[in-house]
């Protein structure tokens, strides 16, 4: 069995029907049928630079839960993330850490340390609880560093680092008069160290490819863990890295399948789609309460959760075709959302599965409030913003920014009786030659969603004029939002875009031209896997390209590596 065969043959054991589906797929791929597609070989690895990637807020929180337990509170305000090349995951390798962010990291670390070292809690978290002044304090300090140091730094501490933090414990104990204050001092130091706050990637020579390097085992473990579980490597993964298991094809597959079967896999899917769908913009979303009185913080939160629940249900629970998220007829709804969708919802405080609309006109996540409200103005809808977002988010088609001197008066005047609908206003606006080019790309797509106002509520008319929701997308014309959904579902760029974004999400950088062959390879396997996203993630996580590093570059991590070794650690 080839490597590719194995990648497709089994995966993610949690839902049984899911596995059965892959078995059926595997059987088909074995060549029993004449029309079965031939498996392709992974192109030669290309690789990228090693990166210093700042962990995101969700990764910070999940890391604390992985290391100490989900009950440990993380109380802090995290800095606004940076989005680059369409993803925050890529922005993490370009973002710095401001003094404000360090202050908040310090607050969060102190909160965690206070919790786990509190007299009533310490026995649950510490390897030993010596009496005050006990002679075993040094042994206990060593055990503490050995337990939590590797988990926090995602690799064993160097001797210098270990001695440094032991010294901090001793110093803290002496100055503060309490052993547990010494532990607290060291723990806060480790949690505010770059080795914890940044994913420090390190590369080693690749014996099989003289002109290429690959991530070292611990960096592989971290990349795998954050990609498949959105959290720091657990003890088993670090042990696999320590024993060289990740360098072995079978060992790697075993760990990947374990991570896919973990409950944390859902968190990884959620993190990716939250990033892809730009949900961080909800933090700044404002709506005119006179025009959209139903919008509030509850709606904003529920709208995001609704879309994520539909995605998780389709892609993970049902192991469904990714493209079907554009044509889902059912959704989970809360009462707060029901006001906007005009749907009854029975549970007072929970979720209920309901049709998005009874007549089928409203289908797919692009007709959710989370998309329609996010890509609209505070007081009106926007075919342009929605068209741009549809192309950018789901098709990876970038639309240039508007020129600086655009006259928006025609579009903004929604009370002009001569132009009652957005289509007419945009038509007037597009007489500007400088605008027309891009609007031709965006507007016909977004106009199909004009039956939904700036919050996402259905409407037949705007200013008493019947809305014309016809449109077209890259050669496909349609009559309404339902047609747009089908166009998105069948668009050839839809799966390609997901593949590219998912890969970028995993490696934390934009793809390069040389990786086109690898992208084509992934897309081909994605198609053979019937567009199952967990299967795609398994393929990515077990491919050589995923861990490949370009050779001989003077990268940031190398400088950090030299620095930490020389000084025995970074000032904390």
């Amino acid at each position, binding site marked *: 069995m080839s490597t590719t065969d194995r990648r497709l043959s089994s995966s993610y054991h949690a839902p049984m029907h899911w596995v059965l589906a892959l078995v059926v797929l595997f059987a088909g791929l074995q060549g029993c049928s004449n029309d079965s597609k031939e498996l392709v070989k992974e192109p030669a690895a290309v690789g990228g630079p090693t990166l210093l990637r700042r962990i995101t807020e969700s990764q910070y929180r999940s890391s604390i839960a992985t290391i100490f337990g989900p009950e440990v509170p993380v109380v802090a305000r995290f800095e606004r993330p940076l989005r680059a090349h369409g993803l925050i995951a890529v922005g993490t390798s370009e973002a710095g850490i401001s003094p404000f962010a360090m202050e908040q990291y310090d607050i969060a670390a102190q909160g965690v340390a206070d919790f786990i070292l509190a007299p009533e809690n310490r026995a649950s978290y510490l390897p030993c609880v010596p009496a005050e002044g006990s002679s075993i304090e040094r042994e206990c300090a060593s055990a503490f560093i050995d337990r939590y140091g590797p988990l926090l730094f995602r690799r064993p501490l160097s001797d210098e680092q270990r001695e440094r933090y032991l010294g901090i414990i001793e110093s803290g104990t002496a100055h503060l008069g309490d052993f547990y204050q010494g532990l607290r001092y060291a723990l806060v130091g480790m949690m505010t160290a770059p080795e914890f706050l940044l994913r420090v990637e390190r590369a080693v020579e690749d014996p099989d490819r003289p002109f290429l390097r690959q991530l070292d085992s611990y960096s592989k473990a971290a990349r795998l863990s954050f990609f498949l579980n959105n959290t720091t490597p657990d003890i088993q993964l670090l042990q696999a890295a320590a024993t060289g298991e990740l360098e072995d094809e079978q060992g790697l597959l075993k760990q990947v399948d374990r991570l896919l079967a973990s409950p944390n896999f859902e968190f990884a899917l959620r993190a990716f789609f939250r990033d892809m769908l730009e949900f961080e913009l909800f933090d700044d979303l404002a709506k005119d*309460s006179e025009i959209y009185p139903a919008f509030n913080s509850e709606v904003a939160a529920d709208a995001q959760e609704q879309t994520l629940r539909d995605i998780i249900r389709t892609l993970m629970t049902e192991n469904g075709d990714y493209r079907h998220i554009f044509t889902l007829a059912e959704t989970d709804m809360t009462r707060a959302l029901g006001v906007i969708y005009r749907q009854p919802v*029975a549970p*007072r405080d929970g979720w209920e599965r309901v049709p998005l609309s009874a007549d089928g006109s409203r289908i797919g996540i692009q007709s959710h409030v989370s998309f329609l409200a996010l890509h609209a103005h505070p007081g009106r809808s926007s075919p342009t913003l929605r068209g741009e977002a549809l192309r950018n988010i789901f098709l990876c088609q970038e639309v240039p920014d508007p020129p600086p001197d655009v006259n928006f008066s025609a579009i903004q005047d929604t009370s002009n009786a001569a132009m009652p609908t957005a289509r007419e206003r945009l038509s007037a606006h597009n007489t500007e030659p400088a605008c027309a080019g891009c609007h031709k790309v965006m507007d016909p797509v977004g106009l199909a969603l004009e039956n939904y106002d700036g919050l996402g509520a259905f409407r037949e008319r705007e200013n008493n004029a019947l809305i014309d929701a016809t449109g077209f997308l890259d050669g496909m014309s349609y009559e309404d939002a339902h047609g747009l959904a089908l166009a998105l579902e069948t668009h050839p760029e839809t799966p390609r875009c997901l593949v590219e974004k998912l890969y970028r999400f995993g490696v934390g950088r934009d793809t390069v031209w040389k990786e086109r062959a690898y992208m084509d390879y992934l897309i081909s396997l994605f198609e053979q896997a019937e567009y199952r996203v967990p299967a795609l993630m398994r393929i990515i996580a077990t491919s050589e390209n995923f861990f490949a590093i370009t050779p001989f570059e003077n990268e940031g991590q190398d400088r950090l590596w030299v620095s930490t070794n020389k000084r025995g650690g970074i000032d904390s």
Partner: protein
Amino acid sequence: MRVIKKSRKNRQPSLLVLFLASFAVHAHASNDFLRNGVMGMVISHIEFALAPNANLASNCPNGMTLNLQEIYANTPAGKRREDETDQEYLKRLSSAGKKLGRSEDGRDFCMHPQLADPEPNFHSVVGSQTAVWGLNLDGRDSAEDFSGVDGESGIDNQWYRTVGCSRSFQPNGMSLSFNIAMLTGSWGIVLEVKGVDDLRNDDQVQVSIYANGDPIRLSPSREPLSYASYSPDTDERYWTTVPGRIEDGVLSSQPADITLRSEVNSMLLERVLRDARVELTLAEDGSASGYLAGYAPVESLYDMLYGYRTGRKFGGELAPLALRSNSANGAAFVLGHTCHGAYQALYANADGHPDSETGQFTSISMQYRIKTLPAFILSASGPDVVTTGVVAAEITRGDAHVNH
């Protein structure tokens, strides 16, 4: 160019989808509020139907209603003494007022209003020259009836007569702000109309009136929202279903006894109307405005608005006497009335449901002006099941007839 028609995806919907879809027919029609002949409503605004342009001088020739302290202050002994400070005088008024509010054996008149002597300082509206809001409930034009603001005659609104000279019922008076309690979620009312074939004219519909089991859903600026989901109160005593009709876009229900919830000072109370009916003018957007009107039993009305004798805690047990008594006396002081004066006036102005033995009227015509917004009314049998409307609510028409 490839053309995508409106054809729907050929997928097998789940049973749940089919079931819920049946509830959501016409989901995107202009009359979204009417689905499968069912129309849900939540009362979004409620106020007492009073007189919009009352002339106090002619309506209240005997002056305004007084509270105990004011009554005492009007006596020779209640005049302020020259050497008395503000604080001392107020203290003396309060002490004397409390004494006036009790029987000789020390029983609180708010709790025992029937023990008090006739109270001359609770003034009712004299005559019927003022135009009031409301409906002609009994179909007659009696001497005590008012004319309506639109010129119609025979408006039964003895509640207005009772409170028209009370200062807390004047424009912006404190007794008019009970709508706020509804908006804070203390209580609420939902309606459901079933069997609607035609929103303009339908001679046979079914109207249900429920106490709302959920707080009303509001916008950030505290405005009620359309199309929210509500479950009726789980207690069937707060459900009433009666036949109704729609004529020229006006929905009216046949009279029936209804009981709804109220709340004062964390005490649960009941809003009872006998032979109650709704009359609502339906608007194209699913909203409606009109009246909830009927006859409030004097004893229960007194308990709801004045004496709180039957106030209960959320566990169902009677609230502590101190809470009921202090709330009633405090309200009387602040709102400017006496408990026993109100009690006597209510009976004096009562015009409905005469006692079969004494002939004494036991209820008083009382009307609310209401506005409604479209809403989804869910099963009264529990929060986890969606139904298309009323479940097993029996028609609870009152047996008593209104006589004059």
